[in-house]
C-alpha cells in the first residue's frame, strides 16, 4: 500500500503530546505486559507439571503456581491495556486495519480468554489440596484446556501484530478476487519463530520469578528449606535452559525475516537484545554464587530489563518495516498539544500511582512474610494516610475543576 494511503488513514484529530512519548510508553508497557504473560504461561505450565506428579515438592509448587497463574492473568490483562492504548495512538492505520481484517478472531479473543480464564478458576476451585500428593487430581483437563486457550489468544495477538506489518498484502486479503471479503474470519499472517521466541521466554522469566519466590519464603519458618532449595535449583535450570532455547529461537526468527528487512538481523538493536538476555543469564549465575542474599530479587529486575531490551528490538523491527519499507513515520503525527491532560497523566502515574502502589505492595510484602496478623509500623501507616489523601485530592480536583470549567 502506498505511503499516501497510509497517511490518509491517520486520525485527523492528531495527538495531544509528542509521538515519541507514546512510542516510549508503548514499548515499556508492552515489555511489562509480555513479562506478565510469560509468567502466567510459565506458572500455568508448572502447575500442570506439578499437578500430574506424585512428588511432594512438585505438588507443593503446583499449589503456589496456580495462585500465581490466576493473579498473573489479571496482571497481564491490566498491563495489556496500556500498550493496546498507545499502539492505537501512533500506529492507528496499521492496528485498526489488522484488526478489522480478522475481526471474527478479535471478538473470539475476548470469548476464548474468558473461557480460558474461567477454566483456570475451575481447576483451582476443584483442587484446593493440590499440595497433597495423596489427593486425587480433579478436573485436570480444565487446566490443560486453559493453557491451550491462553496460547490461542496469544497467537491471535501475534497474528494481529504480524498483519500490522504487511500493508502490501492488505488489499489482497480484503478483496482477494476483486470483491470485498468482510467477514473477517481469516488469520492472514503469522511467523511461527517469532511466536515461539516470545513463548519460550516464559521459561527464563518464570525462572527469575522462582528465584525471588524461594528467597521471599526463606523469611518464613513454616516453609521447609529443602523445598526452597529444590525450587532454587529448578529456577536456575529454567533460566539456563530457557535462556539458550530463547536465544536459538530468536536467532531463527531473525534468520527468517522477510527479505525487505532481512538486514535488520544484523542491526545493533538485535545485538543489544541478545546481550540483554545473555547478561540476564550471567547475572543470575553470579547471584547464585552469592548464596542466600537479597540479590535474588535483583534477578527479577535484571530479567525485566532484558525483556525491555527485547521489546525495544521488536519496536525497532516495526520501525524498519513501516518506515524503512513503507515510508510511514510514526513520529511526524500532527500534534494538538493538550498540557492539562498530559500533566494529569504523568502526575497521577508518577506521584499518586507510585505512592499508592508502594503502600499496597509494602503491606502485601510484609503481611506475606508474617505469621499471624501483621501490624503496620508508623511509617507504613503514614504511607497509607498519604495514599488516601492523594486519592481524595485527585477526586476533589476533578469536581472543582469540572464545576468551574462547566460554569465558565
Amino acid at each position, binding site marked *: 500500500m502506498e505511503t499516501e494511503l497510509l497517511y490518509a488513514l491517520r486520525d485527523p484529530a492528531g495527538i495531544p503530546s509528542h509521538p515519541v512519548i507514546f512510542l516510549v510508553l508503548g514499548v515499556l508497557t508492552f515489555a511489562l505486559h509480555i513479562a506478565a504473560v510469560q509468567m502466567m504461561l510459565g506458572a500455568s505450565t508448572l502447575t500442570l507439571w506439578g499437578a500430574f506428579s506424585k512428588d511432594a515438592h512438585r505438588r507443593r509448587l503446583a499449589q503456589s503456581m496456580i495462585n500465581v497463574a490466576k493473579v498473573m492473568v489479571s496482571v497481564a490483562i491490566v498491563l495489556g491495556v496500556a500498550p493496546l492504548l498507545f499502539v492505537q495512538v501512533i500506529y492507528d492505520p496499521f492496528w485498526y486495519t489488522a484488526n478489522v481484517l480478522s475481526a471474527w478472531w478479535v471478538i473470539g479473543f475476548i470469548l476464548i480468554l474468558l473461557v480460558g480464564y474461567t477454566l483456570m478458576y475451575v481447576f483451582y476451585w476443584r483442587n484446593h489440596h493440590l499440595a497433597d500428593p495423596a489427593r486425587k487430581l480433579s478436573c485436570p483437563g480444565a487446566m490443560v484446556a486453559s493453557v491451550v486457550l491462553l496460547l490461542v489468544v496469544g497467537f491471535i495477538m501475534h497474528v494481529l501484530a504480524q498483519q500490522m506489518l504487511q500493508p502490501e498484502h492488505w488489499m489482497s486479503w480484503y478483496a482477494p478476487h476483486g470483491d470485498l471479503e468482510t467477514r473477517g474470519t481469516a488469520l492472514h499472517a503469522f511467523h511461527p519463530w517469532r511466536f515461539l521466541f516470545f513463548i519460550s521466554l516464559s521459561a527464563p522469566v518464570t525462572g527469575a520469578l522462582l528465584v525471588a519466590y524461594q528467597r521471599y519464603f526463606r523469611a518464613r519458618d513454616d516453609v521447609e528449606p529443602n523445598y526452597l532449595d529444590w525450587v532454587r535449583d529448578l529456577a536456575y535450570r529454567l533460566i539456563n535452559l530457557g535462556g539458550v532455547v530463547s536465544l536459538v529461537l530468536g536467532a531463527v526468527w531473525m534468520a527468517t525475516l522477510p527479505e525487505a528487512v532481512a538486514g535488520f538481523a544484523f542491526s545493533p538493536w538485535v545485538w543489544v537484545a541478545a546481550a540483554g538476555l545473555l547478561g540476564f543469564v550471567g547475572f543470575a549465575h553470579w547471584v547464585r554464587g552469592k548464596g542466600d542474599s537479597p540479590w535474588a530479587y535483583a534477578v527479577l529486575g535484571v530479567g525485566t530489563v532484558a525483556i525491555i531490551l527485547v521489546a525495544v528490538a521488536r519496536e525497532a523491527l516495526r520501525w524498519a518495516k513501516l518506515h524503512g519499507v513503507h515510508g510511514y513515520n510514526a513520529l511526524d503525527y500532527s500534534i494538538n498539544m493538550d498540557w492539562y491532560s498530559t500533566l494529569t497523566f504523568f502526575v497521577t502515574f508518577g506521584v499518586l500511582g507510585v505512592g499508592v502502589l508502594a503502600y*499496597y505492595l509494602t503491606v502485601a510484602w510484609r503481611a506475606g512474610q*508474617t505469621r499471624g496478623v501483621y501490624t503496620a509500623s508508623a511509617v507504613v501507616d503514614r504511607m497509607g494516610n498519604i495514599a488516601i489523601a492523594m486519592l481524595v485530592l485527585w477526586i476533589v480536583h476533578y469536581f472543582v475543576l469540572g464545576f468551574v470549567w462547566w460554569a465558565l
Partner: protein
Amino acid sequence: MELIGLYPTWYEPTIGSGWVVGLIATIHVLFSHTSVGAAIFFAFLATIAYRRNKPELLIFIKRYGLFLLVFAYVAGSITGVGIWYSTTVASPRGISALIHSFVWKWATEWVFFVIEVVGVYMVVYLVGKVDQRTHLRITWIFALASYATMLIIIGILSFMLWPGKEAWFAEGGYLNGFYGSNTFAQLAMRSAFMFTMTAVVGGIVASRLTDLDLRREIIRKLAWLGIVSTITGTALFSWYTSTLPEHAHLVMQARLPDWFSVSLLAVLGGILVYFIASLIQPRLLTPVVASIATVSILVFGLWPEEVARESIRKPFVAGEYVYSNQVIGRDVPGMGIRSEIPVIQEHGLLKTHVFLPEELREVNGENAARVGRAIALSMCANCHSVTDTGMRPLRNYLGGHTDVARIKTYLKGALTTGNTLYMPLIPLTDDEAEALAVYMASLNDPQVPARYAAQRAAIAQADDLPASVSMKE
C-alpha cells in the same frame, strides 16, 4: 486528490456488528458498575465492622469480594478490553476519535485500574491477616480508586454522545470536550444506579450466608441501598434527559417505541418492589431469586438503556462529528478537523475511499451490483444489514420494489440531501447511486444485476451503432 481514510468494513451477517458491541458493552456495564458500587459499599461496611466491633461483616466483604474477583474483575476487565476490540472492528474511526482526544485520560484511568485490581486482591485476602486500621485503609483506597475510574470514563462516554461544551468545536481542548452538563448528570445517575446493581448482585452472595443473623442484616442493608439508589437514580434520570441535545429528543420521539418510557418505569418499579420485599422478608431472597433479578436487570434495564443511548446519538457515533458510517460529517476547527462530505461530493466515494479494489472504482454494467455492494457495506452496513438477518435489513426499506430508476431516485432524495433525521448525509454521484440501486434491487430479485447488465450493453450497442455504420460506409 484528497483521500477519505475509511478502513475496511467488518460485516457480521447474523446479528450485526452493532449488536456485538452492544452485547459486550451491556455485560461490561453490569460488571463494572457493580464492582465500583461494591468497592464503596465495602468501605462503608468495613468502617462499621471496625468501629462497632462487628467482625462478622468482614465475612460478607470477603465472600462478595471473592465473588466479584471472578464475576466482575475477571469478566469485567476482559469485557472492558472487549469493548475496545469490538468497537475497533465495528467502528474503527469512532473509537479512534475517542482515543486520540482522550488518550491521556484513558491512561490516567489505567493507573486507577491497576490500583483497583491490586486492591481487590488485598481487600479479600488480607482480611484477618493485617491489623484493622491497615485493612480499613486498604479498603478505602480500593473504593476511591474504583470511583476514580468511573469519574474518568463518564466524561469520555459523555463526549461520545456530545462534547461537553459547544466551545470544543471552535477551540478544541480536552477540558471543553470532557466537562459539560451531561457529564455531571450522567455521572450522578450512573453513580446511583451502580449501587442498585451492587445491591442486586450482592443478594446472590448474601442469600448464601449460613449465619442467619448476618444474612438478615446484610440483606436488609442491601435492600436499603437498593431502595435509596433506585429512587435517587430515577430522579436523576430526569436531570440526565434534560441535558441531552435537542436532536437527541427528536430521535427519541421518532425512533424509540411508545412503550419504551412506560417499560422503563415498570422495570424501575419492579426493582423497587423486589428490594422492599427483601427488606420485609429477607428469607424470601434465595440465590436463585437474586440471580434471576441480576439477569433481569441486565436484560430489561441495562440492555434497553444501552440501545437508547446508541440510538439518540445518531447519525453520529462519536463527538457529534464522526458519522455512524465512519465518515467525518462536520468541521471541528478547534481540532483542525475538516468535514469529508465536500470531498466525497466533489470526487465521489469510489475515487476517494482508501480500501477499494481498482476494478470497483468505475461503475459499468457488469460490475454495478458489486460496486453497489461495496458502497452498501461501507456506507450502510454499520446500521443496516445487507442480508435478511441482523439489524434493520436494507431490503425492508424498499417495499419489495426492484425498479432501479425508482430506487435510485429514492436514494438520492433520502441520502444525499441529509434530510433524514437520524441518517448521515451520504453523498453519491449519479453512477454510485445507480450502482447502489442495482445492488439494493438485487436483494429482492437476484436477477436484477444480469438484466441491468444486458440493458446497459444494449444501450451501449445502440449508441455505438451509428458510429460503426458510418465507419463501414
